[in-house]
């Protein structure tokens, strides 16, 4: 009956060796993976809303604490000075959360743009909120304001047949705007 102990030992050892190997690979790749996610998931959106920045937006990100949660803020700089900030919020859409990144001009307190980062809306219907036709409505709006879609009494035109998705995007923007003052304060004070 020496078989069962042997089985146990071999299997356990293999597991342990594998785990060791994996944790090594993990620690080697962890930073790169985080960066990849930022570049690929949020990168294009951040670039979009902070268009005209001269710095490396991903590298110059900052983590701030607002309302007891971590928030990664991307800071756009021109001539070495921050001119705009962008960060991610979400609204509840039709198929789940609609994650948006909103950019704000810290000099003029205007919205520089809104991009949808992630969503699970119906392809071809709700997914139209990612299109420029919808998102460009937010460009240049003053941060103070309602930012609601038409059916809710606002002035933002919702995508035909995708009221929920449109509302979610707007909701994301509203949340971001609500955080704006505090974030701005934290980012601009070094």
């Amino acid at each position, binding site marked *: 009956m020496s078989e069962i102990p042997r089985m146990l030992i071999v299997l356990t050892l293999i*597991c342990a060796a*594998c*785990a060791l190997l*994996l*944790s090594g690979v*993990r620690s080697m790749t962890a930073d790169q993976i985080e960066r990849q996610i930022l570049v690929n998931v949020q990168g294009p959106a951040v670039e979009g809303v902070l268009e005209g920045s001269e710095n490396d937006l991903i590298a110059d990100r900052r983590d701030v604490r607002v309302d007891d949660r971590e928030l990664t803020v991307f800071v756009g700089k021109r001539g070495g000075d921050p001119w705009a900030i962008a960060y991610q919020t979400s609204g509840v859409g*039709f*198929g789940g959360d609609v994650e948006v990144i909103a950019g704000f001009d810290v000099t003029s307190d205007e919205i520089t743009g809104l991009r949808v980062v992630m969503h699970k809306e*119906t392809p071809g*219907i709700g997914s139209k909120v990612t299109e420029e036709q919808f998102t460009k409505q937010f460009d240049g709006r003053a941060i103070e304001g309602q930012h609601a879609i038409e059916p809710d009494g606002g002035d933002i035109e919702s995508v035909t047949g995708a009221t*929920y998705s449109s509302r979610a995007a707007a909701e994301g923007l509203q949340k971001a705007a609500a955080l704006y003052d505090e974030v701005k304060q934290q980012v601009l004070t070094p």
Partner: protein
Amino acid sequence: MEILILVITALLIKNILLLQYLGNCPFLGVSKRMDTAVGMGLAVVFVMTLATAITWLVQKYALDPLGIGYLQTLAFILVIASLVQFVEMFLRKAMPALYQALGIFLPLITTNCAVFGVAVLAIRNEYNFVESVIFAIASSAGFALALVLMAGIRERLEAADVPAPLRGTAIGLITAGLMALAFLGFLGVDNSLKALTQS
């Protein structure tokens, strides 16, 4: 209603087999005869539900707190393989009749990517425990449904004059493709039902 939508989605609209491409090897292998298809379907329902429940617990109470989510693949497959073996031994002792019916399919399930896939999907879709279990039941039922429908068609094809090069797996794949085509008819039903509940 949410649960109903979840079930319909997993069963028909995003059928793991036909539209998510999971579990095709056993699908093509055991869909030649109706009785084996039914046996395999039952075995998959049984194992997939159990596996998803256990892996969900492993994820939430071991991997997440420890911050070692990257070991998900390794941990899950280990759990599933052990589970299948455990179930086999258990059935054999406790329910010999059931073992006779399902026994030969159990080893096949270890390498059934649908079981693993559903366990991972339940985590990726951020379902809670109850949702995960229901998702697993519905997905496996979808697997069983596709398997049984396929077996019905393939038993008929036995007697058909299928061109020689297409016989066997090739025509099985084509049949699966046409089944997937038909199932695409359900596209959008989940959203309509969701809209129905929200309005």
